[in-house]
């Protein structure tokens, strides 16, 4: 056995496709291990499907590097987050705490939105007040927004804690207060009057980050914007936990985002271990069942053989995909059930093949002499028959792996994926169902598909590298 199996690997490493395949699978395993170590185990439900976490990302934004191929420079998301104030000015009864962020805006368009998030505010008597100012490169200053922290409730005891569990996020761009502030600013500085409603519709960002032109449009004003958040605290012991300011872009990260603002690169990375898990678990269990039944069927013969073969006949003839769809629809989207169904319907092919091999091996001298020596049936099957089929079995296992991965991807694409484990198929499905192909969200549609293909291809390449040893007749032709 050792000899034949060793030959298999030697052959595999001597072929070009085998080498590429092995290199790929090593890369896949390394990435998967990394993901398993870094990602939290409840990533799917708690992080990926939690829209709050992605609120500060632009929606359906292409990758940032697309700017390299275009003369029009799109804005990238800029995030400022700090828990240390830039300056603290103690006063008699008021302590002023300043947070200053310098936003260097170089894009040919305004940010897609601006937002502020504050967290963990503690105060003792009067609620603190936060004021957001923005100083433009042309020297003009706009007071955008004023946040008065909610006052104490009856019977509440000091210190009053606010926004400590979930930080408070203000979408400045869509805020009525901001809109009227910007509208006033335009009136005063540029003598341009735009109604609040129109400004809300066109977005305040073009006005905050631009100068009005004669034709009623705005030109983007590039340069450094000084964003200042002034907090007024009315007690020595009052404190502000964190302040976050985001200028949303229209391009994002290495892989872009989906319509919920989720960073696709994060979801796609999570797909690696899931895909490998599906492929390897389904194929190894299928192979074990298929091989054992095949050997038993071929070696024991008689009624056992007939019944196994009849069952195999029936199972191979049931069209897999409709049944798979039906079962996962009824039983509910669960990855383990999908894998189980794949196994139930996949063992027969291997059983039929192995049985025909065993029929040949059984009449060989090795087996006959073992019987004469009084070896038990189990021993013969395990020690003498299985080793002769081993290389073939191994190749079949490799060959089945991509089918399992592709089957899960197809199911996910039909909307039957397991929501607790985001897969490439699910990301694709979400993109497809949101009309991604009709609007041209290529960064959302292409990468998951490419990753599915690469992973499936890895196993196909390895299988291809093993082919000459599995099917020696083909080799003679070369």
């Amino acid at each position, binding site marked *: 056995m050792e000899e034949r199996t060793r030959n298999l690997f030697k052959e595999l490493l001597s072929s070009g*496709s085998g080498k590429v395949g092995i290199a790929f699978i090593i890369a896949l395993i390394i990435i998967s291990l990394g993901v398993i170590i870094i990602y939290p185990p409840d990533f799917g439900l708690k992080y990926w499907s939690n829209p709050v976490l992605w609120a500060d990302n632009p929606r359906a934004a292409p990758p940032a590097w697309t700017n390299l191929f275009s003369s029009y420079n799109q804005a990238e998301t800029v995030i400022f987050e700090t828990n240390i104030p830039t300056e603290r000015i103690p006063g008699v009864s008021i302590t002023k705490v300043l947070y200053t962020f310098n936003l260097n805006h170089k894009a040919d368009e305004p940010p897609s939105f601006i937002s502020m998030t504050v967290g963990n505010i503690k105060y003792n008597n009067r609620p603190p007040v936060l004021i957001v100012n923005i100083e433009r490169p042309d020297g003009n200053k706009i007071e955008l927004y004023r946040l008065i922290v909610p006052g104490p409730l009856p019977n509440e005891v000091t210190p009053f804690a606010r926004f400590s569990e979930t930080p408070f996020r203000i979408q400045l761009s869509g805020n009525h207060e901001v809109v009227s502030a910007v509208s006033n600013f335009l009136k005063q500085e540029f003598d341009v009057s735009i109604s609040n409603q129109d400004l809300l519709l066109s977005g305040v960002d073009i006005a905050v980050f631009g100068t009005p032109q004669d034709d009623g449009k705005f030109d983007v004003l590039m340069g450094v914007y000084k964003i200042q958040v002034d907090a007024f605290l009315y007690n020595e012991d009052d404190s502000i936990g964190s302040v976050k300011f985001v200028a949303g872009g229209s391009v994002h990260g290495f892989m872009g985002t989906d319509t919920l603002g989720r960073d696709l690169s994060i979801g796609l990375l999570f797909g690696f271990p899931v895909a490998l898990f599906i492929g390897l678990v389904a194929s190894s269990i299928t192979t074990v069942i298929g091989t054992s039944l095949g050997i038993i069927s071929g070696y024991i013969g008689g009624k056992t053989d007939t019944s196994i073969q009849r069952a195999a006949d029936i199972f191979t003839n049931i069209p897999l995909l409709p049944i798979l769809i*039906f079962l996962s629809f009824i039983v509910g989207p669960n990855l383990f059930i999908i894998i189980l169904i794949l196994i139930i319907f996949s063992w027969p092919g291997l059983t039929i093949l192995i049985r025909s091999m065993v029929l040949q091996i059984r009449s060989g001298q090795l087996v006959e002499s073992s019987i004469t020596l009084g070896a038990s049936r189990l021993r013969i099957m395990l020690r003498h028959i299985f080793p002769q089929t081993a290389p073939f079995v191994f190749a079949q296992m490799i060959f089945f792996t991509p089918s399992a991965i*592709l089957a899960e991807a197809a199911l996910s694409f*039909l909307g039957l994926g397991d929501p607790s484990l985001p897969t490439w198929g699910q990301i*694709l499905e979400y993109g497809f169902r949101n009309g991604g192909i009709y609007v*041209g969200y290529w960064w959302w549609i292409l990468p998951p598909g490419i990753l599915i*293909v690469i992973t499936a291809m890895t196993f196909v390449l390895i299988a291809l590298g093993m082919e000459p040893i599995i099917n020696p*007749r083909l080799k003679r*032709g070369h």
Partner: protein
Amino acid sequence: MGAARLLAIKGVTLFGVLLVSLLLVIVVLGATGVSDRMMGSIVNEEVRELRQSLAITIRDPIELERVVLAEREQLVEFYGLDNPWYTRLPDMVWRILRLDLGSARTLKSFSGSTRVSDIVLERLPNTVILVTTALAISSVLGLYIGVKLATRVGTTLDRGVSYISAASYALPSWWVGIIFIMILSFQFHIFPFGGITSAPVPSGFLNRTFDIMWHATLPIITLTLASVGSWAYVVRTMVLNTAQEDFVTVARAKGLPENKIMNRHIIRVAAPPIVTNLVLGLTASFGGAILTETVFNWPGMGRLYYDAIFALDENVIVALTFIFTLLYVGARFILEVLYILLDPRVRY
């Protein structure tokens, strides 16, 4: 073994397949309580209608409730909901085997009927157009390419095509379809995004036919691409295996011309396993059609399946699972007959 006996055995096995998959579907529906829910919703619907019509004649609300309740009990008994699900099993199997598929809950046929058989009959031809055309094209192409490759084993062409066919195994056809739409429909506007006809439907038989063909092109190319690679590879391998048999060497030694050896000796013998692979290709096509039709919004059975899943229309799902199996088993039986006709060794 006689041919008739052989066919009979195959027929029985395939009928077993049909029965097993049907039982599987029904048992799963019953054991998970979905079947009870389905029946329950039918009863509720009928009771609701009854209450509405009775409310006109019976004014007294207490009397109305009493009558409705009595009717409800009758209905529950009629549908067998008062007994556990497995007592309904034989009836249900028999009903579906007679193709009495019941009616859909939410889905409707294009003409407005809710009978599942009406809906399916409308969709069936659309799927058949797609699957059979794609299968015909890919088998012809596959045979041609496969035989070509077998005569040029080891050349760059051979190796190249082998790699491409291996690659096509790893390519999900539905994703290829999506790429086609993005490039050919979205970017270059050559083909429509999906559907089977333009809106409004062009008048005149010829125009309509062309319109459908135009809409079918991308799905057919997608389905063909998905299968042609593995198809060519299988043909190549089969032909190659046969070409190394002794009788081919003998034929060559006799000095027969190469094309005669190929047609008379090799292909004739390699045909039956190739036909077997046609069967396997057929499964892939039917399965693939579910995905391809979904991608291309093609109003066939596959798209219906997808719609039924999202409309939670259990009756349609059961019916379609059965029909997919039926279609597959039927095609399989036809191919078994072909197999016997092709291979004289099977007959004797």
